[in-house]
């Protein structure tokens, strides 16, 4: 909440805020090979989902308090491409992701990649919101 109010103060009268948040409820792993996509599965993201719900609530509160108004929202899928499961796990570690991915999902992805090649794709839906700063004078 404090962050959003500070951003409000740091914006000019006609400033805008672009908020980009993942929608982890719908994230999933896929294997792409020879032009085909095979869904590997999803993983427990309850901790991330709680964080996102909190963030959405905070945005809702500052809007209801008259700091910002949402002008547009766009949803899109951000795709991360990995040559192997290990590359994905390394990248998660680098990013500081702490959620443990189930062994079954990792094994399934490894098997698919080992038998037919291709690449691992992590599909993360993102919601982009454009908010206009409102004057509270």
């Amino acid at each position, binding site marked *: 909440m404090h962050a959003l109010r500070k951003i409000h103060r740091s914006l000019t009268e006609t400033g805008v805020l*672009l908020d980009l948040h*993942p929608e982890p409820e719908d994230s999933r792993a896929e294997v792409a090979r020879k032009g085909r996509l095979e869904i590997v599965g999803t993983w427990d993201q309850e901790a991330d989902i709680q964080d996102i719900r909190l963030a959405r609530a905070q945005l809702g509160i500052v809007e209801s308090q008259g700091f910002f108004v949402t002008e547009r929202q766009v949803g899109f899928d*951000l795709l991360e491409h990995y040559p192997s499961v290990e590359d994905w796990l390394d990248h998660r570690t680098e990013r500081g992701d702490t959620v443990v991915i189930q062994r079954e999902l990792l094994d399934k992805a490894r098997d698919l990649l080992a038998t037919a090649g291709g690449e691992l794709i992590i599909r993360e839906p993102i919601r982009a919101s454009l908010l206009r700063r409102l004057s509270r004078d």
Partner: protein
Amino acid sequence: MRVSIDPESTEVQVIHELVEFEGRRVLEVGCGDGRMTWRYADKAVSVLALDTSDAKIQQAIDNTPGRLSGKVEFRVADITQAGLELPQEGFEVAILSHSL
């Protein structure tokens, strides 16, 4: 084959569809390693990009393309911290990237 994030450039298309960056002063909160910063900084007049991670900011600084070094400032900071000094003239655009 190597790790590639958003090679389809979907994210860059969306942010440019939503926001006019040309000639704008931009504040980015949660810039991480600067992955997204590079996708709009060329058009902005200046960018102040914040992240709480020393390592990520160092990575962003190390990877700053030479053409942007004069207009992008990366800083280890928490937007909520008391005493954080931001430019008086303000920003026309703020970006919250996976942060709150």
